[in-house]
């Protein structure tokens, strides 16, 4: 998805219609310890928003606050114009580390059916529509796992399981997707397929929030990127935010930046020790030369 057609590059983009997400002065965390401090941003509907930040920076926490799993200690979170609890049916969520009991006997179809869960009263509880089954199959087809519908979900490969979990979010046909590292563990082709699908959903008006460690991908795909490290360290279209300064500020120097055409590409190595030379001397800029040919980092 191209970003050049995006809104004029301001740091807090606005739009005519209601913002899909509006977070104001959010502070929250776990058991008395804050993980996010004073987060404020807003994103218009129909945008592809990438959350970037090092491990423990609060990406998952922010997503949990947006689905209402965590209450704000301070500040407010509004999604689709309302409190998260009120619009859960319009949100497709995919947690990072699922609490899923994979040993549980459930077929892929059963798992995706959970995405269609809604409160029902009286005899409605027992109605199992053909329409529901059709929607489940359609979601599985879009992720090319329809042939696995009757398989045990626990017996699939990790990548197949991610697809099934994404199908479970997709089957609701939500207006807002909150996806916590949806492409982790996918092979390059599957990752591209999933990102294509997300771009297509955004084009059709859905709002997408994806947390990722893949800065190159965020640069390519996202309309907006939010850099996070307990606080917001930067927010805006990627061509403005994905800069060496920003990356250093967010990743505290554990990032290598190299020039690539007009825009800069960043590498976030998994193993910091190999790159200890990057510590502290980020004024020295271009490590790009050192990096050419270091394909083992497996980046884009």
């Amino acid at each position, binding site marked *: 998805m191209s970003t050049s057609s995006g809104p004029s590059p301001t740091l807090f983009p606005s739009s005519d219609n209601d913002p899909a997400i509006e977070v104001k002065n959010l502070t929250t965390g776990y058991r008395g310890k804050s993980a996010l401090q004073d987060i404020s941003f807003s994103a218009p509907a129909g945008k592809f928003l990438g959350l970037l930040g090092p491990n423990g920076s609060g990406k998952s926490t922010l997503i949990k606050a947006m*689905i*209402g*799993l965590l209450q704000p200690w301070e500040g407010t979170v509004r999604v689709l114009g309302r409190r998260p*609890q009120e619009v*859960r049916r319009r949100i497709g*969520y995919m*947690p990072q580390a*699922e*609490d*899923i*009991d994979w*040993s*549980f*006997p*459930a*077929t892929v179809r*059963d*798992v995706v059916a*959970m995405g269609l*869960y809604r*409160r029902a009263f009286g005899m409605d*509880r027992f109605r199992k529509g053909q329409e529901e089954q059709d929607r489940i199959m359609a979601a599985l087809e879009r992720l090319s796992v329809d042939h696995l519908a009757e398989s*045990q979900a626990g017996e699939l490969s990790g990548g197949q399981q991610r697809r099934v979990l994404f199908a*479970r979010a997709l089957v609701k046909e939500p207006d807002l997707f909150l996806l916590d590292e949806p492409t982790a563990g996918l092979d390059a082709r599957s990752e591209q397929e999933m990102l294509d699908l997300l771009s297509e959903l955004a084009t059709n008006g859905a709002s997408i929030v994806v947390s990722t460690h893949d800065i190159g991908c965020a640069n390519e795909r996202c309309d907006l990127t939010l850099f996070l490290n307990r606080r917001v360290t930067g927010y805006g279209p990627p061509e403005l935010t994905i800069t060496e300064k920003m990356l250093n500020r967010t990743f505290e120097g554990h990032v290598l930046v190299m020039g690539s055409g007009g825009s800069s590409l960043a590498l976030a190595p998994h193993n910091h020790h190999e790159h200890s030379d990057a510590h502290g001397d980020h004024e020295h800029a271009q490590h790009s030369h050192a990096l050419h040919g270091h394909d083992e980092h497996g980046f884009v």
Partner: protein
Amino acid sequence: MIDWLSDPWQFEFMQRALLAGALVALASSIVGAFVVIKGLAFLTDAVAHTSLAGAAIAFLAGGGSVAISLGAAGAAGVTAVGVSILTRARMREDTAIGLLFAALFAFGILLISRARNYTLELSSFLVGNILTVPTEDIIVMAALASVVIFVMLVFYREMLFVAYDPTMAAATGIRVGLVQTGLMVLVALAAVAAFRLVGVVLVMAMLVAPAATATLVVRRVPLIMITGAFFGLLAVCIGLYASFHGDVAAGPSIVVTSVSLFLLVFTISRRGLIRTARRLWSS
């Protein structure tokens, strides 16, 4: 041969035993599916043992068999809710169960040790009273079984969702804690029904064995429930025959049958003993 098969059912006490056994088998297999899948066997055992305390209180207070069942159900319910509360205070589940198990079971024994004339009724706490079930007791069991079946039917989707993926269930707006507590209470109710039938020590077998057998042959929760009910009923029938013709205690006889069925299926099933042994041998 026909006589051998039909003889037992001419007696009213055998008919009653079969009815009571069928009700318990049904309720047990329905919660048993979750007990086996989610590893709640320890909870089941604890609930059964603590229901002894409630039963003892009711008995010592001079209550009849209905009061005893209700007392047992009360104590079991307290355990289930207690475990649920302690777990949500971030205590490990097995620790919470162990604590309540020991406390309430010891309390039950304490009460029983004060009783002077405990021989008859109290021995039924150990091995059940399936062959002497009074009608009121059957009504209590039927009530317990109906509650279990009804609640499970109505809240099946929530139970399944929460058992499978609590995070997503919470994100969908399901009150996860409530559903988890509800499941534990259902386990407690089924355990109490089984407790009256086969006694405190054998409750586990009623709830675990048929469902465990079912998981060897089918792999979807509703099928595990139905197949488990089938194995449970089969065990009740065979156990009652054995008890009638072999003149042995009915409760243990049912349990031995149930576990034997498990071993049989385990030996011949696709994921069973023979295949496993062969795989180990060849590797």
